[in-house]
């Protein structure tokens, strides 16, 4: 199984940088504590008018910081743009494994690494300092895992979309910036989406970005019924995957015609 091999190789390649990532984790933690402090400052004495208690919001922010490493902080353009620039994308496309799978399984290997060396350490520190939410209901663990997987799928697809667009535009940094902004804002990184002003909340809850952070955290905190929390991410996960597969075919034809 080629994909599994790519997955494993990518995992072990990142193992060598774990010391550097440890430093980076400290940065992530400080950001987490910051957001927790902001929300404590905001909610103090106003819990009655909020759907989230201070504790719940603390847990929301702690879960967010560890989840960011899995669904939002992916490699810029999944490293596709350099391959386009130096032409190696044509070779990679010619391989027997589908290019979409080739790229995403490598990134998935990195994310699997992130799970152990970034998400879990971050979660662990929050667990001993401010408490980390652990659901009682065993089925929540299962559905939580499903919804995180969907989040990863959406994240991979959004990054792939931007990466593969470099076949047409070459320069993707602007698109990457905008994607990151939308991921943070409409993903629910700082503000749970249902707290946004009403028209914006309605839109955000139905956008693909909501599947990256908001819905997985909601499942994990048992704040939403499972079906309601999975339907939007599932829809976008499938749609984006199909779209990217189609786009890859188009990119391949373009490369065949123009020779990269």
């Amino acid at each position: 199984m080629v994909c599994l091999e790519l997955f494993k190789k990518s995992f072990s390649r990142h193992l060598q940088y774990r010391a550097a990532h440890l430093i980076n984790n400290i940065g992530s933690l400080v950001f987490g504590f910051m957001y927790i402090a902001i929300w404590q400052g905001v909610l103090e004495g106003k819990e009655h008018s909020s759907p989230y208690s201070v504790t719940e919001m603390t847990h929301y922010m702690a879960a967010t910081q560890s989840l960011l490493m899995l669904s939002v902080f992916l490699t810029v353009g999944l490293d596709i743009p350099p391959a386009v620039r130096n032409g190696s994308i044509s070779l990679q496309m010619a391989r027997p494994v589908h290019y979409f799978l080739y790229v995403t399984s490598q990134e998935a290997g990195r994310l699997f690494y992130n799970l152990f060396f970034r998400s879990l350490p971050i979660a662990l520190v929050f667990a001993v300092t401010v408490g980390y939410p652990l659901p009682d209901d065993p089925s929540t663990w299962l559905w939580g895992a499903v919804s995180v997987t969907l989040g990863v799928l959406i994240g991979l697809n959004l990054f792939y979309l931007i990466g593969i667009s470099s076949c047409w535009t070459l320069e993707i940094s602007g698109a990457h910036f905008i994607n990151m902004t939308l991921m943070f804002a409409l993903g629910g990184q700082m503000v749970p989406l249902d707290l946004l002003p009403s028209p914006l909340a309605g839109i955000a809850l139905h956008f693909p970005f909501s599947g990256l952070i908001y819905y997985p955290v909601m499942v994990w905190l048992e704040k939403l019924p499972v079906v309601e929390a999975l339907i939007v991410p599932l829809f976008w996960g499938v749609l984006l995957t199909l779209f990217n597969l189609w786009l890859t075919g188009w990119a391949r034809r373009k490369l065949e015609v123009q020779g990269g």
Partner: protein
Amino acid sequence: MSMIEVQDLTKEFKVYRTKPGALGSLLSLFSGEHRRIRAVDGISFSVKKGECIGFIGPNGAGKSTTIKMLSGILHPSRGRVSVMGASPQHRRKYVAQNLGIVFGQRTQLWWDLPLRDSYEILRKMYRLEEKAYHRFLHRYHDLLSIGDFLETPVRKLSLGQRMRADLAAALIHDPPILFLDEPTIGLDVMAKESIRSFLREINREEKKTILLTTHDMDDIERLAARVVMINHGRIILDGCLETLRERIGLPSMIEVHYREVPRLARLDRVERVKAEGKNVTVHYDRNRISPPALLAELNRWGEPVDIRTKEPEIEEVIRRLYGEQADPRSKTAPAR
């Protein structure tokens, strides 16, 4: 007048056992695990005005460490350097005013800007007067034709043009001393030739003192009246080109491919003959037998279809010096 004075110059590096990653390298600062290597080991020499010195040796021999200490980038562990009477360690900026430096492998020009802009910046950096600047542009247009591509962004220059532009840039403040690190690397024969004749010109006419490192023996033969050879941080030869010739000769190699398997005969005045089927490789010394004479001999063995000659390489030159000096390792002092 002595331009550069080097006495007992030594540079030791601590080599830490580093772990990968940022944290690893930070942690290894605190662990005492290291060993010392001596990159430059007590060398002394002095350079007079107008000399052109070829600084040669294999990679990692200590050439560039020495150049870096001469230009004030590195500070010596021991010993004394003086350039134009000042220590580059203590008066780096003064020394910088009197030095022109070219690193062949990387440009010091502004990549995205037209060449002219780079010169304008350097002109301000070295506080050049309007008149002197115009004189510079004219002079180096005459010598290096930089005027042909003054308005071209540096990234669009050919390698040969870029090297000419870099050379001119290093000379903009008219420094009496010029350090050149591999000035002809990667250039084609024509470009190499134009760089060499330019350097000869400024060495002879303007009495610029030049120190160049190179892997190309042709550079040395064409330019350097004096050769300093360095290996394992020590000077193993310091003398004029003739001294080098006497010691090692002019090692060369010729490869001949014959139509038929050649009839080998005894060959005097060559060092080694290796025959494999229709191919013959001969190592010889150009001081002892000239290439035409050798070819005449080889012609008697059969009908050559293809002939290739190879110039001597620094590595080969070094090997020969060691051939007469026994194992170099035994000479280096154990690190303290």
